[in-house]
């Protein structure tokens, strides 16, 4: 029985390690929320973000409704988590800027819409998909990215990103 248990633990660990490697490893998320101007509304978002076990700290700028979320190392969060949390509070994402390890964006789930050479270990990028930018911005992007078939399809599992640094 003990042997089975330890094999099981090893197997689970391997799966876990493999899966964390395959996902984002987001270390920081900067979220600007839209549709609100009151501190009670900001607090609703603040509490939604803080309830994520992966969150270490949330810093809020109430005047711009910007939330800087610091995350635990090697977490498996995807950008969608932040969208869901903000929308649960009753609002939307205006901009979402994520900081991750460079290898993260080499995964197939990320589609680069600009080409910036980056030599540092960490990369900062903005998610440009529907639901991660304002409605107005999305309409503009639909036009400018009309040659990119994956953008208009609004697939929830791929993210179109713009490298910032």
């Amino acid at each position, binding site marked *: 029985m003990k042997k089975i248990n330890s094999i099981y633990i090893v197997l689970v660990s391997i799966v876990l390690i493999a899966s964390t490697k395959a996902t984002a490893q987001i270390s920081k998320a900067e979220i*600007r929320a*839209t*549709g*609100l*101007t*009151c*501190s*009670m509304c*900001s*607090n*609703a978002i*603040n*509490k*939604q973000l803080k*309830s994520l076990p992966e969150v270490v700290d949330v810093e*809020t700028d*109430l*005047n711009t*409704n910007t939330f800087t979320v610091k995350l635990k190392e090697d977490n498996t969060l995807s950008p969608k988590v932040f969208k869901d949390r903000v*929308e*649960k*509070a*009753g*609002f*939307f994402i*205006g901009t979402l800027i994520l900081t991750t390890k460079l290898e993260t964006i080499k995964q197939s789930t990320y589609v680069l819409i600009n080409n910036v050479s980056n030599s540092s270990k960490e990369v900062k990028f903005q998610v440009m998909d529907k639901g991660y930018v*304002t*409605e*107005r911005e999305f309409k503009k992007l639909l036009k400018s990215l009309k040659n990119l078939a994956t953008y208009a399809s609004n697939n929830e599992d791929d993210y179109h990103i713009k490298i910032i640094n």
Partner: protein
Amino acid sequence: MRKVIILIIVFTFQKNYSQELFVVTDPASNVPANSLAVNIMQSAFKEKFEPGYNYHFMPEVTYGINKNLMIRGSAFISTRSDALYAEGGGFMVKYRFLSEDDLNSHFRMAAFGRYSFNRADIHQEQIEILGHNTGFETGIIATKLIHKLAISSSLSFEKALDNKPNYPFPSSFGNNATNYTLSFGKLMYPKKYTSFKQTNINLMVEFVGQTINENGKSYVDVVPAIQFIFNSQARLDLAYRQELISSMLRSAPNGFYFNLYYTFFDLKN
């Protein structure tokens, strides 16, 4: 009336932050998902045909089922017929079906339905299922937040039924009505946020009207209010309701509201 118009103009052109957590009307926005809001509503209205005030106590709990749907349960207790008589209760559902959000602005629309029961006597032509009549109400709400001013309007249909077991709805009254509201809200303080702990002060003006569909009898009231928000979580409202025009029988149109409101955020965690 002129003062009211001036007040609205002043509100509209002041550039500041705003709020839409109105006192007597609901905005198109809901409480956050998985959050519970408790509201202790109290009111004292001056009796028109007898001396003194009647006191109404209406505790409410509101829960956000998901980002678009919320439910609310209310209880109606009053001193109108007896010392703290439990007159009835109600249930409300609100669904947000449109959201167009931009930085610091939004336009939202919601539909709502409400059912209440009440066993108190029927003493006025005004139909009010919040604490007076048994009946239902259904309608739509549109809320716009623009240049940091919140403007909200609603249109609804309200029908009164018999206040069972003892008080059937009088056949001489019209038993259904069209309700319309227009609310303005503005955050006056702070000018600049520094923390969640800061107390916010909001000023609001709300217009609430009703027309009995059968005979066209109507009223329009104005409700100016001041609201304090503590620690971005608790709310205190002080408001006064004044009849502006009325062609129907109302037993106590003018009076005060005193609300205490507390939000328990994200209960599932």
